[in-house]
C-alpha cells in the first residue's frame, strides 16, 4: 500500500516503474499467503519480471521525467472519494475472509474439489479447472494473448537497430553479472520446462512456464548485448511458434470434434476417458506454453529493437 502511494506521488518515472515491480512482488507474497500458489507464481514472473522490463524499455523510448502537474486534482479526488465510499459501503456486506458459507464455496467449487481428481486425474486442481473444465475460457485467453502480440507487432514492428550489435552490451562488460547469468540461464530454462510438464502435479502450467522461459531469453539479451537473443531465436521462428501454440490448442479441440465428442472434450483422445483427459491437458498446456513464450519474447524484441526517435 505504502509503495503504491509512493509510486503515484513520484514524478521520476524510472522510480515509479521500479516501485511497481516491488509492489508486484509483494502482491505475489500475499497470494502465497492466501493459498493461491499458482497465482503467486504467475504474478512474480509476470508482474515483477516481464512488466518491469517492458515498462523500462518503453521509458527508454520515451521520457524519464514526468511534466509537472498543471491541472487541479480536486475533481479527480472527489470522483475517487465518492466511488471509494460506495465501494466500502458495498464491502461491509461481503462475507469475511475464509468464510466457508461464502457464495464462492457453494456452487461449482465443491464439485471441482470432490470430482476433479476422479474425472481429470490430476492432483493440481487449478490446472484441471484451467485446462479441462474451463477449457473454452483458456482457449479464449490464449487467443487474446496471441492477438495482443499481433497488435504490438503491428504498432511497433521488429526493426533492426543499426546500433545493435550482438555480443556488445550497452551496460558494458560486467564480469560478475555475466558469470552469474551464465550459470542462471540454464537453470531458468530447466525450471521453465519443469513448471511446464509438472503442472499437473504441483503448482505451474503453460502460462507460468511460457513466461519463465521467455524471461531466460530476455535476461540473456539484457546482459550479453542487445540482439544476442535474436541470434539464438530469430523473430521469424517466434511468429510461427506463436501461431503453432494456438494451433495445438485448437487442434486438440477439433480432433475431439472429429472423434465424435464435444469441442475440447479430451476424453476422445484415448480409450480410457481419464487418460484422455490427462493427455489433453498436457497437450493444451503445451500449446499455451509455446504461445505465451513466443508472444512475450516477440513483444520484448519489438520494444528493444525500436530505435529512439526525436
Amino acid at each position: 500500500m505504502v509503495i503504491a502511494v509512493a509510486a503515484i506521488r513520484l514524478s521520476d518515472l524510472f522510480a515509479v516503474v521500479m516501485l511497481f515491480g516491488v509492489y508486484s512482488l509483494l502482491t505475489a507474497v500475499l497470494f502465497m499467503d492466501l493459498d493461491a500458489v499458482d497465482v503467486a507464481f504467475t504474478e512474480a514472473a509476470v508482474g515483477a519480471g516481464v512488466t518491469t522490463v517492458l515498462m523500462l524499455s518503453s521509458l527508454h523510448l520515451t521520457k524519464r521525467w514526468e511534466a509537472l502537474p498543471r491541472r487541479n486534482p480536486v475533481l479527480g479526488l472527489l470522483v475517487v472519494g465518492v466511488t471509494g465510499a460506495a465501494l466500502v459501503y458495498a464491502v461491509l456486506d461481503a462475507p469475511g475472509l475464509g468464510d466457508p458459507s461464502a457464495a464462492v464455496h457453494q456452487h461449482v467449487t465443491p464439485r471441482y474439489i470432490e470430482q476433479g481428481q476422479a474425472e481429470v486425474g490430476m492432483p493440481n486442481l487449478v490446472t484441471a479447472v484451467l485446462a479441462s473444465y474451463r477449457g473454452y475460457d483458456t482457449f479464449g485467453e490464449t487467443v487474446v494473448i496471441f492477438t495482443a502480440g499481433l497488435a504490438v507487432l503491428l504498432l511497433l514492428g521488429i526493426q533492426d537497430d543499426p546500433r545493435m550489435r550482438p555480443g556488445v552490451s550497452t551496460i558494458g562488460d560486467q564480469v560478475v553479472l555475466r558469470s552469474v547469468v551464465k550459470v542462471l540461464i540454464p537453470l531458468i530454462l530447466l525450471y521453465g520446462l519443469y513448471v511446464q510438464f509438472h503442472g499437473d502435479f504441483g503448482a505451474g502450467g503453460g502460462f507460468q512456464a511460457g513466461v519463465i522461459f521467455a524471461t531466460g531469453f530476455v535476461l540473456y539479451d539484457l546482459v550479453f548485448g542487445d540482439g544476442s537473443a535474436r541470434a539464438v531465436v530469430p523473430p521469424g521462428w517466434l511468429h510461427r511458434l506463436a501461431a503453432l501454440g494456438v494451433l495445438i490448442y485448437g487442434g486438440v479441440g477439433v480432433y475431439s470434434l472429429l472423434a465424435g465428442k464435444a469441442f475440447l472434450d479430451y476424453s476422445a483422445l484415448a480409450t480410457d476417458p481419464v487418460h484422455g483427459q490427462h493427455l489433453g491437458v498436457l497437450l493444451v498446456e503445451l500449446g499455451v506454453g509455446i504461445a505465451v513464450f513466443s508472444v512475450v519474447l516477440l513483444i520484448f524484441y519489438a520494444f528493444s529493437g525500436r530505435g529512439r526517435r526525436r
Partner: protein
Amino acid sequence: MSFLPGIFNYLIVVFLMMAGFYVVIAQGNLVKKLVGLGLFQTSVFILYITMGNLAGGQAPIVTKDLTLYSSPLPHVLILTAIVVGVATTAVGLALVVRIHEAYGSVEEDEIHAKDLADDEAMLDADAAHKEEAGR
C-alpha cells in the same frame, strides 16, 4: 493474513483500486496512467483471491490427508488474467511509444494542445484556400 478480521482485505482492495483509478483519471502522463491501470488490475486480483480463500484450507493441490482446499476457480481466472494483463499492458505501452514518436510527448495536455494547434492550422489553410477560390 488469517489472523486479521473479515473484511480487512476488501478495504485494502478498495483503497488500491481507488488509487489506481485516481492515477488514471487525474494524471496526465500516459506511462503513469498505465501503472495506475496496473494498480487497479492487481486490486481486482487480490479481491478474487481473497474470495477464494477458505479458513483452514490449503492450496488446491490434492494430497491424501487433506480435505479442505481453497477454491481453485478464482485462482484459474486470475492466473489467466495476469498473463492477459501483461499482454494488454504491452499493447498500451506500444501505443504510448507510437504516440511519443508522433507527438514528441507522453503528456496528455501537450498532446491535446498539439492536436488543437494542428486543427487550427488546418482550418486557416482551408479558409485561405476558399478565399483564393472566391477570387
